[in-house]
């Protein structure tokens, strides 16, 4: 944006603003917008801006409705960006309870706080996985695709994200609080600085020398999204909600942002294993593809099943299972025309540059950890 006048967003509250996505949202707010920024997070020590940036930090558990409302009353946000969510790892009762508590109950508390304190716009970080049943391909899916709920949804995390998204969208112009406008952003495969999931796992695969196997034909396209682009999508949505709130008339259906969900990607689906190899190359792999052996999907499923049996027998969670085979062979990419048209969204950082930055950060973290261990 630079020389142009930065758009104003008034008072912005970022929930989960010290998290992976949240702290990029904060960074972009400071860089690209004129606004005052506040952050609510469980812990506000990591990913904290220097004091000179003037960000107000509040430590709170979002399921604590009273505390949340008190903070809202103090900050008086015009717009709230709700990015808080636990890491999508774990498939046991404890993690399920956490998903439900933070994603569903926490979001409900955020909505109530917004409604009670006259917030104009709420942007919720949903997930592109809400339309996935974790088995079927998603080929150029857009917002017309139905969300997968209940027993069709095999990932409980996605179920809770979808439930929360439903709450958020239902709160748009709700009869008892018609002033609040809401929308949901559904990012796919977020990666970037601060990511401890996607790249961390991929680089581990390379470090353990397991980059010599490719499951499936590698014709399956997948959407990975650089985190700054996701943050950018959120802020475009926030701005659109504020503009809608200020407008005298209701928006036309095909221009509407409030009450809508938007897929956000890098707008460049890539072949699944190509992405992995790009990460490995950025992490220093000198290898091409000559050493790669292709494991057919069917055989992979058999091995995955055997692994599950083995780990079941020794009573540990499997490190390798059929779901991982399925994911690496699944086509899962999205058509983001809606975000482009209605939000004016366009990725700020191309995918290859995003991978370079993200890998550099991951390697730096790794080095810092090793150094601190060595001391």
């Amino acid at each position, binding site marked *: 944006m630079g020389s142009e006048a930065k758009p104003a967003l008034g008072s912005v509250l970022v929930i989960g603003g010290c998290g992976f996505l949240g702290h990029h949202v904060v960074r972009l707010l400071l860089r690209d917008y004129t606004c005052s920024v506040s952050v609510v997070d469980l812990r506000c020590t990591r990913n904290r801006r220097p004091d000179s940036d003037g960000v107000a930090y509040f430590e709170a558990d979002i399921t604590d409705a009273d505390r949340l409302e008190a903070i809202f009353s103090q900050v008086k946000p015009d717009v709230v960006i709700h990015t808080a969510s636990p890491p999508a790892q774990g498939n046991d009762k404890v993690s399920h309870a956490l998903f439900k508590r933070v994603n569903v109950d926490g979001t409900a508390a955020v909505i109530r706080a917004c409604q009670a304190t006259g917030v104009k716009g709420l942007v919720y970080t949903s997930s592109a996985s809400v339309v996935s049943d974790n088995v079927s*391909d*998603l*080929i*150029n*899916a*857009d917002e*017309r*695709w*139905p969300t*997968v709920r209940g027993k*069709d949804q095999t990932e409980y995390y996605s179920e809770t994200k979808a439930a929360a998204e439903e709450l958020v969208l239902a709160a748009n112009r709700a009869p008892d609080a018609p002033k609040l406008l809401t929308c949901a952003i559904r990012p796919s495969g977020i990666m970037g600085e601060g990511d401890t999931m996607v790249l961390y796992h991929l680089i581990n695969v390379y470090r353990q020398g397991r980059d010599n196997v490719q499951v499936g034909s*590698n*014709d399956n*396209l997948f959407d990975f999204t650089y985190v700054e682009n996701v943050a950018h999508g959120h802020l475009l949505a926030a701005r659109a909600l504020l503009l809608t709130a200020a407008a005298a008339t209701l928006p036309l259906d095909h221009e509407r942002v409030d009450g809508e969900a938007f897929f956000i990607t890098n707008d*460049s*689906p*890539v*072949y699944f294993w*190509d*992405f992995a*190899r*790009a990460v*490995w*190359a950025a992490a220093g*792999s*000198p*290898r*091409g*593809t000559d050493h790669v052996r292709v494991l057919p999907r069917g055989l992979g499923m058999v091995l995955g099943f055997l692994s599950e049996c083995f780990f079941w027998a020794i009573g540990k969670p499997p490190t390798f299972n059929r779901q991982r085979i399925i994911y690496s062979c699944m086509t899962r*990419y999205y*058509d983001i025309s809606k975000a482009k048209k209605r939000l004016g969204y366009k990725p700020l950082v*191309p*995918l*290859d540059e995003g*991978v370079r930055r993200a890998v550099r950060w991951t390697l730096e973290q790794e080095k810092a950890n090793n150094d601190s261990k060595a001391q």
Partner: protein
Amino acid sequence: MGLAQQAIYFLFHPNQLRAIIQWKVWHEPVHKRDPSKETPTEKACFHYLNLTSRSFAAVIQELNPELLMPICLFYLVLRGLDTIEDDMTIDIKEKEPLLRGFHELMEKDGWTFNGNGPNEKDRDLLVHFDVVITELKKVKKPYYEIIKDITVKMGNGMADYALNAEHNANGVNTIADYELYCHYVAGLVGEGLTRLFVASDLANPKLLDRMELTESMGQFLQKTNIIRDVHEDWLDGRRFWPKEIWSLYFDKWDDLFAPENRERALQCSSHMVLNALKHVEECIFYMAGVRDQSVFNFVAIPQAMAIATLELVFRNPAIFERNIKITKGDACQLMTESTQNLRVLCDVFRRYARRIHKKNDPRDPNYLAISAQCGKIEQFIESIFPTQDPQKIAAGRRHPGEQPGMDTMDAVVLVVSCVAVMLLLGATMIGLAWLMGANMDKMVTGLGALGGNIKPPGSIADVPGRDEL
């Protein structure tokens, strides 16, 4: 290549032979010119068309009668211009007014030109250019105006390049220069063709509002040729690869061809391929706007050849050693596939996008960008012909299919007998289908691979060359 050698090649590449036979036997032109009704000058024009064009001659002569003569003449006029421009024995002082005034010369009854050097391969056309002029007078006014307008632009563009000492000494510098050059040699032709297609109501008039689509059609063909011909051009002392790209990899242009620099040269070439691939979506979009089958064939064949050529040159070190071409069998198969409909043509593009992605090398700095561009092509095709329907997906979830139960024994008997019958039927039908020319390339490729290193015979149906226009 000797007959025996060819026989051995085809023995190990039966699908190549099959594709050739399939094209020769089954290709039914949408329109055929009728020489019995043609005037002597018309006949003469087609004679020169066949003489001067290797690859456009056939498709032009299958065009809709409405555009048959206009496009044939359009081609000959541009070929005439090109023959003057190419001839280094003509002094620039004489050449410039000829190029800039060609649109006036082509209106002078009986004008001919025999100033070309004796070795200029197409000099005959200009020696007998009066036949072209005679026929041009009969072209419908709107079509003629388009041909004339492009001739003016092309002549001036050629004159500018001929006078441009910097360009002639050092070649193309920036990517913008590169694309401007491609505009003059291919984009302008495309502009003329699109205007002819729309004027004759054989293409959607909206194409005129989106001239960038037309431009991409020309850019894609031209860039592909420039990448493919890099070695030949280098030998001729010409350079069309923009310095802006190759200087990222080399300080000196000649280093690109040094055998010890192959890997780096390949990376440079994949940068060029990536630059060309960005036009594919617009090319497909353009072809979706064509209404007439013969026009579709006319524009689709060169495009299909271009994507196949791009796949052939991608990460292929041979381009720095010699001129390479797609095999004649592949060319015939591509012609068969690009004379059907947009859907079949999209399958061709997807197939080659995937092949390019399979050849991609993670060590290449353009690796992920190329993967993303191939993905973009697939996504674009998906947006025209979607595989999934959200309504059906939603309906499927609401009413999950319930299967009635069945005894185990019954099931086993049923399955075994079904499998037996299907195998028998299947084998018979596949055999029959293959004989009749169905597509089973994947099954045959496995066998073909046994043939290993036997070289294909030289290709006849090439991608339209820049040497032609």
